[in-house]
């Protein structure tokens, strides 16, 4: 009886949907005129590796798609997967807007990216070892010495110190963009404390919940193993004196930090302690945490606190987030800090220009991934070009991230441009400029149905004694028509990134 009813319901369901069959959400979709579309080619046909995906999602009517969207949003809200924006008042939380149309990456394209990212990370790590030891790359004039020494992220205190396993950058988030020709370019390196990986995993979890059938037909590489991979990598570079089972802790600035959800998520999924600076202390150059059972030694600290705030005795003395004498314990080799202190020099957007040279210099290889052409305002010729062509360029402050401190020339007002002109002239070392690259676009749900919106991609590279790249990464999407700024702090959203297991 029961089964009969449900099967007849199923039949009714099919009949209903064909009776009121609405047009596919892709019906009226028009790819962007100048950008490469990640799903649909110029003729309006899906790329071969996107066909199954477009066909499956394309079966949905706009109402059905809306229902799925509400279900996804509700899942994020009840799980409290939210972030707070600094300019908002304390405690105000927003969900990171999530778009249901995934962003696919072809399997063979990914293989190239994977190799390129490993190559780049390897060179950056060798560069860090070099600038904090022999400084050969400076002596050989591949990179101007004053460029490195004037970088805010360069830490003289690290000179002569070798972190466990010679590993400086355990986690790198590399921002990639794809130009209209379909080539992936590196936009910036994040070697300090890159964030966002929890969204990669949670986006996948929610997608699997909302579209279980899609994953049966399309084989997508798993992203859920990231926390274990990171844990293993960090254990592999624990200090030698930490014994067979090193104790790991994630150091967070605390619940009011905009990435606090991510900190709890990672600590929980790595099975390690989540601590604030006040939970740790240093005794005889060893780091302990304060537990209900007394002091317990900590061997590896995955810190989500910036260099300057790590140790009020060594760096900023007004920091409430750090641990006094932590830096001493570090220099004594009693604790691994990930990422190492002083990696910010790689994030300097003027140093970025030289990463391709680093690859050639250290690895004697040609870079697999190219940079976006960059003008360095501290170079005289570059400076005058930049000042004369502001309306064509994107200007960025060298140490900022998150879309802060930048000027999008083509979208700026005359007043903004003259303001930036003054800023650049006053401190040229602090600025770089790049031509505007029209980022690739992806069908994204908007008030007018599916429409192309620009996207970038941040893969995560994890290194201990080996290097592993999370297959996929965070696809950030601008939600405003025509906007090329995808940062969440500037109102962007995200998508699930699908690295195809096999190509069609």
């Amino acid at each position, binding site marked *: 009886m029961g089964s009969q009813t449900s099967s007849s319901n199923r039949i009714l369901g099919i009949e209903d949907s064909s009776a009121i069959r609405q047009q596919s959400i892709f019906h009226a979709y028009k790819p962007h005129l100048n950008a490469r579309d990640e799903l649909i080619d110029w003729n309006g046909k899906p790329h071969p590796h996107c066909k199954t995906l477009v066909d499956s999602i394309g079966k949905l009517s706009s109402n059905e798609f809306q229902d799925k969207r509400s279900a996804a949003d509700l899942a994020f809200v009840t799980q409290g997967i939210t972030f707070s924006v600094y300019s908002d008042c304390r405690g105000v939380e927003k969900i990171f807007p999530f778009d249901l149309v995934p962003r696919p990456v072809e399997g063979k394209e990914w293989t190239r990216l994977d190799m390129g990212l490993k190559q780049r990370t390897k060179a950056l790590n060798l560069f860090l070892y070099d600038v904090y030891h022999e400084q050969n790359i400076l002596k050989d004039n591949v990179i101007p010495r004053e460029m490195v020494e004037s970088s805010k992220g360069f830490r003289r205190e690290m000179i002569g110190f070798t972190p466990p396993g010679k590993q400086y950058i355990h986690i790198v988030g590399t921002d990639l963009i794809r130009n209209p020709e379909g080539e992936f370019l590196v936009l910036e390196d994040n070697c300090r404390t890159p964030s966002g990986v929890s969204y990669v995993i949670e986006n996948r979890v929610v997608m699997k919940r909302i579209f279980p059938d899609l994953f049966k037909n399309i084989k997508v590489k798993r992203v859920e193993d990231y926390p274990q991979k990171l844990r293993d990598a960090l254990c592999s570079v624990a200090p030698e004196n930490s014994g067979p089972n090193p104790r790991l802790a994630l150091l967070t600035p605390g619940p009011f930090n905009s990435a606090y959800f991510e900190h709890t998520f990672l600590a929980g999924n790595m099975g390690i302690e989540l601590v604030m600076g006040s*939970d740790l202390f240093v005794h005889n150059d060893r780091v302990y*945490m304060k537990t209900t059972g007394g002091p317990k030694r900590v061997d590896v600290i995955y810190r989500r606190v910036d260099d300057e705030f790590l140790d009020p005795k060594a760096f900023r003395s007004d920091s409430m987030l750090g641990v006094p004498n932590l830096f001493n314990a570090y220099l004594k080799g009693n604790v691994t800090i990930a990422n190492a202190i002083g990696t910010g020099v790689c994030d300097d957007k003027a140093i970025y220009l030289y990463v391709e040279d680093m690859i050639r210099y250290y690895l004697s290889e040609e870079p697999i991934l190219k940079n976006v052409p960059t003008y360095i305002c501290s170079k005289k010729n570059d400076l005058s070009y930049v000042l004369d062509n502001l309306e064509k360029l994107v200007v960025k402050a060298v140490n900022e991230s998150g879309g802060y401190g930048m000027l999008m020339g083509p979208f700026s007002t005359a007043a903004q441009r003259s303001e930036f002109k003054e800023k650049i002239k006053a401190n040229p070392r602090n600025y770089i400029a790049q031509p505007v690259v029209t980022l690739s676009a992806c069908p994204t749900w908007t008030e007018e149905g599916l429409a192309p919106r620009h996207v970038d991609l941040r893969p995560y590279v994890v290194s201990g004694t080996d290097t592993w790249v999370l297959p996929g990464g965070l696809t950030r999407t601008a939600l405003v028509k025509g906007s090329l700024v995808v940062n969440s702090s500037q109102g962007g959203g995200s998508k699930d990134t699908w690295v195809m297991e096999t190509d069609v």
Partner: protein
Amino acid sequence: MISRLAEHCFWLSRYIERAENIARLLEVNQNWLLDFDIPVELQWKPLLIISGIHDYKGNLDKESILNFMTWDHENPCSIVSSMTQARENARVIREIISAEMWERLNYNYLWLQSNTAKDLYDNNRYELYNQIKRINQLLQGIGESTMLRTEAWEFYQFGRHLERSGQTARILDVKYHMVQSNPDISGSNIEISYWTSILKSCSGYEPFLKHANIIENQVGNAVAEFLILEESFPRSVLYCLKECLNSVTAISYQSKSKISNRTIESLKTLNAWLSNQETRQSIKIQLHAILTKIVDNVHSISDSMTSTYFDFNPDDHVLEMNEIEKINS
């Protein structure tokens, strides 16, 4: 576990328990006042007194007080404040409580802020308070079947039972403050109705009838005895304090703390005092004094938990750390 996170577990459960008990308190007062003519300004004041609110400047009518105790974010003792605090504590330790507990609490917190909850308040207040009570019950149930039985669980249980023992004592003390401000109401017809409401607010009406030893004309005494001393009733003061003792004993064992534990000693002393015959007999004549002593002790036990487990002073552990270093080198 990390001392700070243990403290969040402890306060998380206290705030959820508190929200439940405020709902119970508001309900009981509302119910028993239906039967009697008591001057408006005296009806609700006792409730503020037992909640420790002495600087309330608003109106003393029912709607004002219910609004103040349910919705006022400025009032640290309101339901909405307690739920906000609970959720803030839970947010900090969301990787320690189970994901299901966090999701449920977060859902309920959002529900309480929504128009659905406001509509329920306007149209079916009884149901609103029922739902608020259910939040704690649900979370306890989810925790029961999902949370690791480690220290975090014991701190959670400890906080819950400590809060409940204090709240049960407070609910029992309403009458004292009511009579203090209005001697006329101590008549016997009020008694039965009043004590029935108290029992109902503690979900104890039927258990009481099944279990208690009722001597005619001494209903009040029997109810007080039941709610303070009945060891088989999970909301009685003694039951809760015994649970606290179990939890802190488990914590002491699991954490392998080498620090002497004042909390265990205080709980043993308090429980022994409650269990002795003399205390039982003095309930009849000195109820308010006994309840005051219970509430004061709950405070000092909370303080001693803080100094034993939550405030960590490295200087107390130097010998231990030297030991650890010896083993490692």
